[in-house]
């Protein structure tokens, strides 16, 4: 095959697979082999994207180079092996669970964000121990490699080389052809393994060591070995062939024995390094979060120390955000009624203040959860009105209780104010009454307001669960609340 030097002499030499540095906007897309729109290995497409040239031109150049004594093949294979797979146009190929924190940082602390951005990407992938990669983004980038296509391609290339050689007057013995093909097939198999291993690193922390990959490697080695033997030992007698094979295997085993400790240490060091990188990335995440939110809030609190209500509000908002960051599972938007309700609570705590301007704290206890639908959306809005009503007219502490049962969803909103008689509510509060009670009743639920003399008011809302509906489908549109579960959106 080719020597790497021949490829480095090529004008594209500098574009070896060093991931682009993230400082500043990259002038051109990084050199990656795209998974879509590829003919063989995506080398030409990736190169075209990187150089800003048309794919056709690059492919044509490769064909020309193939004509020049096979340089094109060598170059192609070299790039195929060395250039990592990926979407060259992807702005940020880190997994979503790492990008979560960068979003707020981007607006607030540029240098920190930029510095952090570099760490995971420069390492060529996420740390293996950070967490399971979310299926959405990485899953889209990973595609099963068409091994058969590659094999066919290599066979075709080999055929082209042979034909070229024949045309140039080389005398090709038939006994050369089969061993060469076997050798090539073995090499292809082993190299496809390398390619797959690269993807495996994205997918699993085992480094892509699956039974299939092992089989591929072993099969490739056996094929290549057989090919070499047949090539070298064409005119040998079978017993000499056997002897030399045994000798070769013995030499290989000896070399393996000598290199094994070194190899093991290398593997272990690699693992250690990956783990350290993962820890470092988690630490950077936490540091960035603390910097962006907690420290800033503390600075704000110190600056506003003369305004107790505002200080309490900021402290509460920060506490809520930190809790969410530490303990919450962050369900996907539109899938959790509890998360939507928590977002409503957060919004009220952030934007409202009590009758005498004090900060609002709502003790929320949520039992059970389900996917939101139009009914729960009505319940959510009614709950919101009830909470606002309690904030404005009631007295703290405010309690909110949600219970999602198999056939009934119940909400209780309680304050410790004077209480009021529903029949004697002033006309200006009729709208509130309508927006709480009417909303729920229209959905087949019930609503009641109970006032206990001097002991607060409790609004009780409940709606039945409709069993036979597909909530997932109905929940998709008209769910503005669910998006607000993102704790950093408003920062």
């Amino acid at each position, binding site marked *: 095959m080719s020597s790497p030097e021949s490829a480095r002499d090529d004008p594209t030499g500098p574009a070896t697979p060093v991931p682009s540095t993230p400082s500043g906007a990259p002038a051109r897309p990084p050199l990656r082999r795209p998974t879509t729109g590829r003919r063989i290995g995506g080398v030409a497409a990736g190169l075209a994207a990187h150089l800003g040239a048309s794919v056709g031109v690059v492919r044509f150049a490769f064909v020309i180079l193939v004509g020049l004594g096979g340089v094109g093949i060598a170059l192609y294979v070299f790039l195929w092996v060395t250039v990592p797979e990926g979407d060259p146009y992807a702005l940020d190929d880190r997994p979503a669970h790492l990008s979560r924190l960068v979003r707020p940082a981007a607006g607030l602390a540029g240098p920190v964000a930029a510095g952090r951005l570099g760490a995971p990407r420069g390492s060529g992938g996420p740390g293996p121990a950070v967490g399971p990669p979310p299926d959405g983004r990485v899953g889209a980038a990973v595609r099963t490699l068409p091994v058969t296509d590659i094999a066919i391609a290599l066979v075709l290339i080999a055929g082209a080389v042979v034909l070229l050689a024949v045309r140039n007057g080389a005398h090709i013995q038939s006994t050369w052809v089969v061993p060469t093909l076997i050798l090539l097939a073995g090499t292809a198999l082993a190299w496809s393994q390398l390619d797959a291993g690269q993807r495996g690193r994205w997918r699993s922390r085992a480094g892509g060591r699956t039974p299939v990959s092992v089989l591929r490697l072993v099969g490739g080695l056996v094929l290549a070995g057989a090919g070499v033997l047949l090539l070298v030992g064409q005119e040998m007698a079978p017993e000499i062939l056997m002897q030399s094979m045994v000798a070769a295997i013995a030499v290989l085993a000896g070399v393996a024995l000598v290199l094994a400790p070194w190899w093991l240490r290398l593997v272990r060091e690699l693992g250690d390094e990956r783990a350290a990188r993962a820890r470092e990335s988690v630490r950077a995440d936490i540091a960035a979060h603390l910097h962006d939110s907690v420290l800033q809030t503390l600075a704000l609190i110190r600056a506003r120390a003369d305004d107790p209500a505002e200080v309490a509000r900021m402290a509460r908002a920060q506490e809520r955000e930190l*809790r*969410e960051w530490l*303990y*919450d*599972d962050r369900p996907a938007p539109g899938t959790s009624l*509890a998360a939507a309700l*928590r977002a409503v609570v957060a919004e009220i705590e952030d934007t409202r203040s009590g009758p005498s301007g004090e900060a609002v*704290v709502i*003790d*929320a*206890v*949520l*039992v*059970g959860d389900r996917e939101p639908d139009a009914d729960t959306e009505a319940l959510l809005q009614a709950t919101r009105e009830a909470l606002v009503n309690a904030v404005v007219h009631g007295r703290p*502490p405010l*309690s909110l*209780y949600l*219970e*999602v*049962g*198999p056939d009934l969803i119940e909400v*209780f909103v*309680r304050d410790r104010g004077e209480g009021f008689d529903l029949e004697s509510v002033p006309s200006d509060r009729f709208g509130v009454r309508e927006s709480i009670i009417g909303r729920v009743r229209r959905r087949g639920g019930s609503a009641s307001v109970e006032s206990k003399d001097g*002991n607060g008011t*409790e609004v009780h809302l409940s709606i039945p669960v409709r069993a036979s509906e597909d909530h997932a489908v109905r929940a998709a549109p008209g769910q503005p609340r669910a998006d607000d579960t993102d704790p950093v959106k408003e920062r």
Partner: protein
Amino acid sequence: MSEPVDVVLVDDHLMFRAGVRASLDDRVRVVGEASSVDEAIRVVRELRPPVVLLDVHLPGGDGGGGAEVIRACVDLLGETRFLALSVSDAADDVVAVIRAGARGYVTKAITGADLSAAVQRVAGGDAVFSPLLAGFVLDAFGAAAGDIATGDDELDRLSAREREVMRLIARGYSYREVATELFISIKTVETHVSAVLRKLQLSSRHELTRWAAARRLI
């Protein structure tokens, strides 16, 4: 007013200990403090207070935090009662410390007066349930799904009355208000709450452990 209750305060943050000490009223007297697992075990064994206010997350020991302290003092549980006081909302923290033997769980946002009342209640042998803990119980025992015990000796399910009490506590009702609402005496409410605490501690309900491990909700 009777004699103040002696408590030992265990928390690794000096500032928080000072804050709690200042907020407690004259129903409670802080007789000792500790800031790590080992120190807490030593101080509790030495002073044998009726009540220990215990943080869930503590340094030292084998890394077991507050639950480890309770387990190391399990022979004292007759005379010393533990009230977990934590900033953590994580369900596994709550369940771990309760199952180790704590008589209650309150969050650090509690007011001084409420905390003093809770200490007194624990000293009297009763359990203290915050709305949050009641919510955990309802969630863990599947009470919201209508999984109701029929017999008194069932450990894995709540009785209908216990569920009612838990629901009212989760809705922010005090024990007195629960009693008024259900037309029962405060003593009966306390009995129900203690029964629920016992179930929470002894239940082998496999969902409970799995739930605590898998679920982290506020």
